[in-house]
């Protein structure tokens, strides 16, 4: 097969664990590549080639390129950008795809600025137009509107993809794996002092199920009910803005226009009235369940299933039922 187009996917990993969103990005790149005779190369910057190349191939990579260097153990944008720019000097890529994580978004900005190429952040849908070019849909104003963009000018065109949107199962296929030593400048002071504290806690943007609470939870102590449900379902706990402003929960849990935008398969809005800012941050979820004592709450207008009642009463019963069916 002749290759018309090369798509690079930058893999994100922490402590030797590949971020699930990286596999999604590979799957999305694969789908594009199949439409435009493209080749997908997983770009894996790391200390040593110890990540599962096979997993990358199963999610769509034709080739896995490990760029290794002791200073690439952790993501540091200076080092990542340097190694990628070196690579782009000698190999040409038509598209570069990254996860729309905090790391992916800043890396796309540096590469775009250094290379003078365009970038579309946080894409939620990708397609190929009649001319064979990639088009992307991205939410603006936290999803209150959607914007379709195309690229012009220099390549590679850069896209970052929102987590939880492009999930696709692995399939059996062949690919090659190559390791190259990366060349980096001297250690910067930042590298020496970097401390990364990433725990086992599931991030709300990456969770398949999010259980969020609002002021209807009545107090921080009742969030235990949400944690119980989230634990049973393997989900993460979110919160509305007033909850975070009241310091009941950490700001990293806030869902909404001034918080995080989430697109889980299942979203529980518990005691959340449904302010427009909150709806902007969660209405792209797969299925929405709202529990609120006020039958006129705006949240019910976006919910697939509504329960009118006191969340404090409803939640334990729900958790029990889920436990039963999951045989926990």
């Amino acid at each position: 097969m002749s290759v018309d187009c090369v798509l690079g996917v930058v893999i994100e990993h922490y402590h030797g664990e590949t971020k699930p969103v990286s596999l999604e990005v590979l799957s999305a790149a694969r789908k594009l590549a199949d439409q435009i005779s493209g080749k997908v190369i997983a770009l894996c910057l790391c200390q040593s080639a110890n990540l599962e190349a096979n997993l990358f191939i199963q999610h769509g990579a034709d080739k896995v390129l490990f760029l290794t260097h002791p200073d690439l153990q952790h993501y540091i944008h200076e080092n990542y950008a340097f190694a990628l720019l070196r690579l782009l000097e000698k190999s040409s890529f038509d598209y570069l795809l990254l996860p729309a994580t905090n790391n992916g978004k800043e890396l796309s900005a540096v590469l775009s600025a250094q290379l003078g190429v365009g970038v579309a952040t946080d894409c939620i849908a990708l397609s190929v137009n009649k001319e064979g070019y990639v088009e992307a849909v991205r939410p603006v104003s936290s999803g209150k509107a959607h914007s379709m963009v195309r690229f012009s000018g220099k390549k590679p065109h850069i896209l970052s993809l929102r987590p939880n949107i492009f999930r696709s199962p692995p399939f059996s296929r062949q690919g090659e794996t190559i390791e190259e030593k990366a060349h980096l400048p001297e250690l910067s002071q930042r590298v020496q002092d970097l401390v990364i504290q990433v725990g086992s806690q599931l991030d709300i943007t990456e969770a398949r199920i999010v259980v969020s609470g609002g002021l209807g939870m009545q107090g921080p102590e009742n969030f235990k009910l949400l944690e119980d449900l989230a634990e049973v379902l393997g989900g993460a706990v979110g919160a509305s803005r007033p909850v975070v402003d009241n310091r009941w929960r950490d700001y990293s849990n806030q869902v909404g226009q001034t918080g995080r935008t989430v697109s889980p398969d299942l979203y529980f809005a518990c005691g959340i009235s449904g302010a427009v800012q909150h709806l902007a941050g969660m209405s792209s979820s797969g299925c929405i369940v709202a529990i609120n004592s006020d039958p006129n709450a705006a949240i019910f207008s976006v919910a697939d299933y509504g329960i009118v009642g006191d969340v404090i009463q409803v939640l334990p019963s729900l958790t029990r039922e889920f436990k039963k069916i999951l045989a926990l």
Partner: protein
Amino acid sequence: MQIGSRCDNIHVNYNFGVGMKIIVCVKQVLDTAAQIQIDNGSIVSPGSSRIINPYDEFAIEEAVCIKEKKPDTEITLLSLGPEGFKDSIKKALAMGADKAVHLMDDKFDGLDSYALARVLGRSIDKIPYDLILCGRQAVDVDSAQTGPALATFLGIPFVTVVTGIDFSDNFKSAKITRQVEGGSEVCVLPLPLLLTCQKGLNEPRLPSLKGIMAAKKKEVLTFSASDLDIDTLDMGDNRVIEENLWLPPERKEGIILQGTGDEISGELVRLLREEHKII
């Protein structure tokens, strides 16, 4: 070395003086409570107010907090936008910034984040600084590109999505906490530095009456495209083109589950498992 090769003005105007000089980038956006419509390919919201981009408020507040600890600090706001942006500039001055630079020209309409960072970078040629603070993203375009692109053009280190800043005693370096998915990172960096600010960093104050009165006397310099000589600037030439803008389809109204508490719970679990196959 490739990195820095596109920098316009590396090492030209760092301050290194006695007092700290901070630039805060401020954008005005539509009120987050606004309902929007699409008219002629643009977002409109008749009658809705405009506000300072919420993440930029954290940047302004942080600068004012630094000035409270280090009174010889000078805070310059930098804002690019039409005449209406003056409202947000005034509010930010009332919160405690010292002066403002307003970049205003029809030629600045519709700049993408690359071009915007280019123009901001050019204007910073005229302003000495030790620290540049931005919001982590503007809540209208939601790109999160301008801050890091600006730092790249200026050739200075940056940290994005910052939730903590702890200066050394002499204010020559800072310990920075950055949010990442599922955790945080901490690093120590020397100034000059650009940081993009995230919720959790501080709690922005409301302008006091005294602040509002004082703001009226503060200097607002206006620069046009020709003042900045932008014809000589590589603006990237529209590398990302918007083809269509629409409102996402409204979710259809669902059903309210009826029955006793346990009946409702049982039915919901059944629906999620059998109909949606999520559980």
